[in-house]
């Protein structure tokens, strides 16, 4: 190794080594001469004798130098200098090539950056690859009121089922294949850490959480197992490092300070190490609280968080050394069967959970990646980003095709030069090596330039895409991983360029090119065939991209234009959350009532109401409804809404009335339902005035007073049976949204809302008022991202393909200028000349287009799963894409055609 280094050094600094050798030889000769002189020779003769005894000094030095350097590196350096000269001599060419590849690589790196942040990166915890997420259906139990289940679909589309605290404890104790198991559960409480309350992301975690993940404390201590005693743990909290910095400015005096989480006092005992933000992707939790404090800081009415009835913990296990996920899963399934049978023996009631057992078997999922968790970011973006990555890789392939085209064209121009060198015995490998160095140098230059492109693209992304909160926690600046990615892609691109261009250039039969007059046919048939092939591939790929992007754009249009069933324009909303502990339902209702009255009085507000879930933003959760005397139960979605709700959001009632301020506890229980519920529950019968049960196994006590038209639950979600209940009559949700109908297109002003809340109750946390349309748009982030970026890629691909076609056709015209000139001189019609050139463009486009369509159709399933309201092979869209491509192709041929038909025959003939 050291020897290699020294040789390298000698290669880089040849002068020093040469001087050393000279000095050494000089010393040797002098010493020899001294000896001869001592034997009695005169100094001149002694020197000659010395030189004779030494032998050919220069010859020896040559051998020495060869041995000393690394010939390969030596040659590479020479090639590099040669390349640098060549590239500098044609700056236009160099710039074009570098810019083309830099754009493509930059776009790739930008998508990679997102993909890496969201999906690929491992969690910054100890041995992340040993972590598995445990998904197990709840065990049968004697629970009075059913189960609260945590059910998440992760980014891979698989479902993970939450576990209950008792099941977690069993997992930890009874599975020897697990080194340890932790459990955590995210909550979103109000947090009072200073004067203004805020919403915080908190994580209820078991006491071994930090130890098992190998996370140390940056300050104070992390949570310990004895913080997490059942039934009630220590009233302590550990802050996440980022939150500590944001909220407390990194103040070390936060230790021992008391904060109120949902109005429950907790003492800060430490700050977790920087860089750790929970086990999910995205921004992660702000603070960590012992799991056994769950009932105190985030009580669920009627449930004990530590009982079997609440199965919402996410359990993460660390596999014991040498145990594979499959082994552990198999073992765990066996144990679960035993547990299940034991539990069945304990209870008398028949249990519905067997259904879950069949459809969601006990499973272990890889847990070491940010994407393994079920955060909103990862779930939505994983497959989207993978699709985009594939698309943008195709763009790079197209760009590389163009560059190859340029390189081959230039190689053809230098063909004479190459031929002469081959003819006088240049090593073919030597020529190939020159090309390699050239290709790599171009690609690497482009790689460096692409870093800037990446930074720029990434900075632009949040501007064109409504990331909203979801971008928080993503560090959108290229880091080392992105740089390595760029480097690898650059090298790969360089090799690709070399393989596609160099072979052609040096393989040409050398002699014919040296004949006089042969220069006119500089592009021999073979490289032209290669270039045609490349252009066909380009056409095919860009047609595929174009089809996909057109479909995605139309799909987005379909989604945006779905009728939400209410008037979105002019509707603003904000959420309020009251700190749970110590508040009675009456006081909450009173506050909401006052808030509503005050909001109605704000300038610009026409009407205002409340809702537990904003309409058209997905599922709101629900229960089972039934009518007396009928066994049928209907699963429905529930919205708790304020008085005048339907009037405020502009959702038409087809019968009955809106809620009013008189729908309060004590008055008759009422509900408004939608048509879907009516037809599911009553068939065609009249529903107004009927009594229903809104809760499984509960008496029917709620009268239907109104019916709304069916409205979709979200852009992609069909209308479901829905029941609206008056929120003042059934206060349940700690978080409510205030919706306000504004005059003109205004949004509710944040300042006025804040001052109203401050006056009413400073402990209430609220979000910034925003247009409801924005919330809906955010829900379409994935589709918007796909449509926008794929459109960008498709345009890029089209432009590149256009340039490719243009280059090839221009080249063909230039090559046949003589022939065309002769034809024109002989009186050929311009039309026939046009045909001569256009035929080529048309042929290439036809072949490429046909291949592209075929390939697209076979790959359309992938795109299809993202589409809404049209099929992946929607004929009008595909046809339109094809026409656009054809138009681009023909316009690329236009200038060469014009040039061909305007050749001056006299000029051509004169050069003969």
């Amino acid at each position, binding site marked *: 190794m050291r020897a290699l280094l020294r040789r390298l050094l000698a290669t880089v600094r040849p002068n020093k080594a040469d001087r050393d050798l000279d000095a050494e030889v000089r010393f*040797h000769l002098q010493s020899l001469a001294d000896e001869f002189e001592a034997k009695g020779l005169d100094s001149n003769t002694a020197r000659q004798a010395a030189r004779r*005894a030494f032998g050919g000094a220069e010859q*020896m030095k040559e051998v020495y130098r060869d041995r000393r350097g690394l010939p390969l590196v030596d040659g590479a350096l020479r090639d590099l200098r040669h390349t640098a000269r060549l590239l500098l001599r044609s700056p236009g060419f160099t710039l074009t090539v570098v810019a083309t590849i830099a754009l493509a690589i930059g776009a790739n790196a930008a998508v990679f950056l997102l993909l890496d942040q969201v999906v690929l990166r491992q969690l910054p915890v100890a041995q992340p690859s040993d972590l598995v997420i445990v998904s197990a259906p709840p065990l049968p139990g004697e629970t009075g009121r059913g189960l609260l289940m945590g059910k998440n679909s992760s980014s891979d589309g698989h479902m993970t089922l939450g576990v209950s605290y008792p099941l977690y404890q069993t997992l930890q104790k009874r599975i020897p294949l697990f080194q340890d198991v932790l459990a955590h559960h995210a909550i979103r409480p109000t947090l009072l850490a200073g004067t203004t309350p805020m919403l915080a992301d908190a994580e209820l975690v078991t006491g071994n959480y930090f130890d098992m993940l190998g996370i140390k404390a940056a300050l104070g201590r992390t949570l310990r197992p004895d913080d997490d005693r059942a039934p009630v743990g220590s009233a302590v909290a550990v802050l996440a490092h980022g939150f500590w910095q944001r909220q407390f400015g990194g103040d070390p005096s936060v230790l021992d300070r008391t904060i109120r989480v949902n109005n429950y006092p907790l003492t800060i005992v430490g700050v977790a190490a920087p860089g750790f933000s929970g086990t999910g992707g995205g921004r992660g939790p702000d603070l960590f609280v012992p799991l056994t404090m769950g009932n105190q800081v985030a009580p669920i009415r009627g449930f004990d968080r530590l009982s079997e009835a609440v199965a919402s913990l996410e359990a993460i296990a660390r596999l014991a050394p040498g145990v594979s996920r499959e082994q552990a899963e198999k073992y765990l399934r066996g144990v679960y069967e035993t547990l299940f049978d034991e539990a069945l023996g304990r209870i008398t009631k028949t249990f519905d959970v067997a259904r879950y057992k069949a459809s969601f078997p006990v499973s272990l999922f890889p847990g070491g990646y940010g994407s393994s968790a079920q955060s909103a970011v990862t779930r939505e973006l994983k497959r989207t980003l993978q699709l985009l990555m594939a698309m943008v890789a195709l763009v790079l392939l197209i760009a590389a095709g163009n560059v190859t085209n340029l390189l081959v064209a230039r190689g053809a121009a230098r063909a004479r030069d190459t031929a002469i060198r081959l003819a006088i015995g240049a090593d073919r490998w030597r020529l190939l090596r020159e090309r390699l160095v050239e290709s790599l140098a171009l690609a690497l230059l482009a790689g460096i330039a692409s870093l800037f492109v990446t930074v720029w693209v990434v900075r632009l992304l949040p501007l064109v895409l409504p990331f909203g909160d979801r971008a928080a926690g993503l560090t959108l600046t290229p880091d080392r991983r992105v740089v390595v990615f760029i480097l690898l892609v650059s090298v790969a691109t360089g090799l690709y360029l070399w393989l596609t261009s160099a072979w052609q250039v040096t393989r040409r039969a050398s002699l014919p090119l040296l004949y006089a007059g042969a220069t006119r046919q500089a592009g021999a048939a073979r490289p032209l065939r290669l270039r045609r092939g490349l252009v066909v591939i380009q056409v095919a790929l860009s047609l595929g991209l174009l089809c996909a992007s057109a479909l995605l754009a139309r799909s987005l249009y379909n989604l945006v234009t779905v009728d939400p069933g209410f008037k979105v324009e002019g509707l603003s909303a904000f959420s309020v959350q009251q700190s749970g502990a110590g508040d009675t339902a009456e006081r909450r209702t009173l506050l909401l009532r006052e808030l509503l009255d005050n909001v109605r009085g704000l300038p610009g507000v026409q009407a205002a109401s409340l809702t537990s879930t904003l309409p058209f933003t997905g599922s709101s959760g629900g229960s089972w409804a039934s009518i007396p005397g009928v066994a049928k139960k209907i699963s429905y979605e529930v919205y708790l809404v304020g008085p005048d709700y339907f009037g405020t959001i502009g959702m038409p009632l087809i019968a009955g009335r809106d809620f009013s301020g008189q729908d309060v506890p004590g008055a008759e229980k009422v509900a408004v339902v939608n048509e879907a519920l009516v037809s599911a529950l009553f068939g065609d019968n009249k529903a107004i005035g009927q009594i229903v049960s809104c809760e499984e196994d509960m008496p029917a006590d709620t009268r239907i007073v109104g019916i709304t038209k069916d409205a979709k639950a979200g852009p992609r979600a069909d209308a479901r049976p829905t029941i609206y209940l008056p929120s003042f009559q059934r206060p349940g949700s700690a978080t409510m949204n205030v919706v306000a109908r504004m005059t003109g297109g205004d949004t509710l002003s944040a300042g006025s809302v804040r001052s109203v809340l401050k006056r009413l109750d400073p402990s209430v946390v609220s979000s910034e008022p925003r247009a409801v349309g924005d919330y809906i748009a955010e829900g379409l982030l994935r589709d918007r991202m796909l449509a926008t970026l794929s459109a960008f890629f498709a345009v890029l691909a089209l432009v590149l393909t256009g340039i490719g076609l243009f280059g090839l056709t221009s080249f063909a015209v230039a090559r046949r200028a003589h022939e065309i000139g002769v034809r024109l001189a002989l009186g050929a019609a311009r039309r026939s000349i046009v045909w001569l050139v256009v035929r080529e463009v048309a042929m290439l486009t036809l072949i490429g287009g046909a291949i592209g369509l075929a390939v697209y159709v076979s790959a359309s399933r992938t795109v299809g799963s993202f589409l809404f309201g049209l099929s992946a092979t929607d004929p009008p869209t595909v046809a339109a894409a094809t026409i656009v491509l054809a138009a681009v192709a023909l316009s690329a041929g236009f200038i060469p055609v014009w040039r061909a038909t305007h050749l001056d025959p006299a000029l051509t003939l004169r050069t003969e």
Partner: protein
Amino acid sequence: MSKGETNPGLLQGTLDLMVLRTLQTLGPQHGFGLAKRILQISDGLLDLNQGTLYPALLRLEQRGWIRARWGTSENNRRARFYELTRAGRRQIDAEERDWARTVGLMRRFLRSSEEG
């Protein structure tokens, strides 16, 4: 592979062993001293261009068997002194064994052809 760096009359590798052995007996030595000593021991049997020594020295250095540093010669001239490294010392044993084996092998061949 390497072109013409040893005297054609000299078997490849023999010069290496000579240099290593000489360094072992004499200790650190400059090129001139080495050449002198080697010619002295060969007692006129070896007709060696002394310059040939230097590529051999470089080769040994690159293999890490000897190292070189600048010093002052007996007559106060700046000279490069070569000395054995630990790896070089080990190498001598290995080379000696190889050489003995080669000599033994050759002897056997020569004897058998004498008999046959």
